[in-house]
């Protein structure tokens, strides 16, 4: 699960995660982040480096 807020500044970033994930399939991540209003590099790394692992641990519950 994507963290609700940015670890460093506290801005809510999880609300744009799904749109971001969809759009980077055929768009440049930098452009998508700019358009979603994720300005600071602390918030940008939250989305850029997130790996969703919930589906991978699901079978081992």
């Amino acid at each position: 699960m994507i963290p609700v807020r940015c670890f460093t500044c506290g801005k809510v970033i999880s609300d744009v995660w799904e749109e971001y994930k969809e759009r980077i399939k055929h768009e440049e991540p930098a452009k998508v982040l700019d358009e979603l209003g994720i300005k600071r590099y602390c918030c940008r790394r939250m989305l850029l480096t997130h790996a969703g692992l919930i589906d991978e641990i699901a079978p081992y519950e």
Partner: protein
Amino acid sequence: MEVKIEERGENEVAFVLSGVNVRFANALRRAMFAEVPKLAIDEVNIYRNTSLLYDEQLALRLALIPLKTRLGAYSAEDRISLTLEAESPERAGYAMVYSKELISSDPEVEPAFGNIPIVKLISTEKEISGIRTVARQRIAFEAIARLGRGSEHAKWQPVTSCAYKIMPDEGAQDEPLSATKNRSVRLAVEGDGSLPVDELITEAARIMREKCERVVEELTG
């Protein structure tokens, strides 16, 4: 002191205070961080949680959701309950639970962002000796929000990034920076969505004034 607004966004504002002491700008910044009250989820009664997140993780995620707060409308004793019940689909698949699904006891208190994923509920299909079964996940809880201040916990902090920088003075480039001299200070404030930024700044200023007045009152008897 002069105030000039430089930039204004939906949830952010940047303004220049000229002819002020840097200490004053810092006091205002700290008041915004730590003194302006807002609502946040503080307690969660979990009735059922068969999701992949532990109860603690679920409660932590809930606490970080900014709730829309009307300034002055709530007291420290008020409790607002937000309930949610959700289950994964009947067949194999998943259901994402979003912050907009929280049902509030106060129609004015709602998450500032409706699209925050709280948890992903997954249904898995298994075949055991020819019989197909679907394991479903379910959550049911009541979250209780209360009024708090940023000085207690960061979840009650109404600002995210809130910083100032000292603007260069014209014709005084070689002068060393001094904390006591009046300068121009640019304050950039970004709210977390629970309060409009303008209200947040004026409330911080009001709290500062109230504190100063209390000191004067005490001293003059």
